[in-house]
């Protein structure tokens, strides 16, 4: 078990390093002059020179990358200012250290992703199990076709429609906003309720379908049949035997969907005008704020990979076969 996790963690660290390297070289090596890219349309030679020195562009790309990597762990003294320990550079646009900006925006994105995750797992797995339980009946058919339509909805379409119904026309809910959890639980919950529901929709359908088919498959397994045959109640067999087995493929998919979840959070933030990491990423790209884009990219990749390792651990926990192989 420990060896399995160590191997996975090492793999994740290596992947993260490679992702950082690829993005770094892509951003700083492909365009003839990244300073020009950062400088934009109204570039003056003076501004160009400043960016040049700030980026340390007179050095070879590999050396720059080395400095960047060391800076993440040891901090750097950049011409534009001091940059403390986890140094991802300093934003062109705001002059703030990238790390601080990300940490500042992180709680919102985390709340959004975690809440969305909970909603789509509970609703998706619940509906999928219900459909499998009532396989072939009207309930099953309704759930299946509803999930097909839901999966074709998009956050940026559904979001405004939901806002229109529940906020603008009826006034039942307030416009989504972010209140830190530490300030007020109800404010946090009510403020993010609409974004959670809207965001979860795109994933719910997929998980409904998956948990349904996985559950049906499990119910046909020998050990489940044997449990039924020796007289255990269907309820007990359904939850204790089949459900646990059906989770295995689903847990794998959750790990793979982490990137998509982050993407979903980004679209949700943009749809509802919330200022999280996803929005930061978009704005940094539009403003050509290279250090910020790099920082968000590496940071998110690290987060997604970390979550993948956690999911792998959960996977090994559910399925003993993984531990042994």
């Amino acid at each position, binding site marked *: 078990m420990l060896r399995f996790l160590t191997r996975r963690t090492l793999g994740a660290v290596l992947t993260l390093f490679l992702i950082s390297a690829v993005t770094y070289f892509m951003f700083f090596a492909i365009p003839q002059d990244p300073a020009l890219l950062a400088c934009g349309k109204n570039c003056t030679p003076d501004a160009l020179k400043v960016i040049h020195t700030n980026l340390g562009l007179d050095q070879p790309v590999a050396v720059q990358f080395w400095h960047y990597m060391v800076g993440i762990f040891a901090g750097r003294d950049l011409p534009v200012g001091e940059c403390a320990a986890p140094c991802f550079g300093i934003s062109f646009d705001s002059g703030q250290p990238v790390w601080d900006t990300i940490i500042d925006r992180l709680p919102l994105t985390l709340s959004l992703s975690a809440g969305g995750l909970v909603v789509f797992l509970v609703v998706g797995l619940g509906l999928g199990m219900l459909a499998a339980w009532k396989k072939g009946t009207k309930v099953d058919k309704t759930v299946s076709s509803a999930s097909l339509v839901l999966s074709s909805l*998009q956050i940026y379409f559904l979001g405004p429609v939901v806002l229109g119904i529940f906020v603008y026309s009826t006034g039942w809910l307030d416009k989504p906003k972010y209140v830190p959890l530490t300030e007020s639980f109800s404010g946090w919950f009510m403020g993010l309720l609409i974004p959670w529901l809207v965001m979860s929709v795109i994933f719910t359908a997929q998980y409904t379908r998956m948990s349904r088919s996985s559950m049906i498959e499990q119910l046909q397994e020998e050990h489940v049949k044997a449990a039924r045959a020796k007289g255990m109640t269907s309820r007990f067999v359904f939850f204790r035997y089949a459900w646990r087995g059906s989770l295995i493929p689903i847990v794998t998919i959750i790990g793979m969907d982490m990137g998509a979840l982050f993407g979903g959070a980004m679209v949700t933030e943009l749809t509802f005008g919330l200022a999280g990491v996803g929005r930061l990423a978009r704005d940094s790209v539009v403003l050509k704020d290279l250090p910020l884009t790099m920082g968000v990219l590496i940071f998110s990749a690290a987060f997604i990979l970390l979550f993948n390792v956690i999911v792998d651990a959960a996977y090994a926990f559910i399925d003993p076969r993984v531990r042994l192989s």
Partner: protein
Amino acid sequence: MAKQAAGLSPGQLMWRRFKRDRTGVISACIVLFFFAVAILAPVISMLYGKDAYTLYGQDNLDLLDEFNMPTGGAGGISADHWFGIEPNLGRDVFMQLVYGMRTSIYTALAATVLMVVIGVFMGLVGGYFGGKIDYWVGRLTDFLLGFPSQLFFIASMPVVVAAFVRPDEETPTTLRAIAIIIVLSFLGWMGLSRLIRAETLTLREREFIEAARISGASPSRIIRKELMPNIITPVLVQATLLLPSTILSVAFLSFVGVGFVEPTPDWGRMFAIGADIYEQDPVYMLFPGVAMVVFVVAFNLLGDSVRDAFDPKSGR
């Protein structure tokens, strides 16, 4: 006289099964309709008498009120402007949608073709040659699957654009489209490649491949003439499933603001405009939104039907 039992090719069998699947046929018709609209956009524009660029609201001051919102309620729908008028700029929504779909569908089609080509190539090479090559193709696939894809899409868009155009120049629409296609297909081929690799691994051990190898056929010939015809089914099925998700990715880029930009009409950008002005003019969003839902639902159903027709065992 009894009709002689004629052998049917897998394609004919598939067509037979597909024709009997009512859902499949209906969704195929809907999908074809959307494609027809995309291809015939200029003809529709000619018959309709309007285009996607003219600012009708600015020429005819009755169309927009003092807040630049369409007059007459319901988004300014009228006999002249079937789907209403776009707020602020005052363009024709129907034409925006028709040309927007054209942009999105063409871009997504090209990206999907590229993904399929790369995916099939990588999968075949990895699966057929095995050993070290397979190992490295596998590692590359895993590595790219670890990328936070949507974030990477938006982050790499300006970089890819900058590889073609100097930052102080305007980017032509075709170059933007090419950049979108490159970015999307770069991270879009891995699923297909894995599938093809698995298929190839089982096919490789079959007698007919062995026979071809013994008869002295070159690897490239075996891949082209022996393996390719046998993997065409999963490729087709995957491609029909890949296209709608690619269209959504193109829309995502434009919605976020790094894909197609003004004045190119684009499906995804209509959502960005719609979200902006939804409180004042909710009708505007309805047309691109409903069109996209119908399109994606039809396409997903079509994908399921194609899979069932090719492989009746798979079931749902």
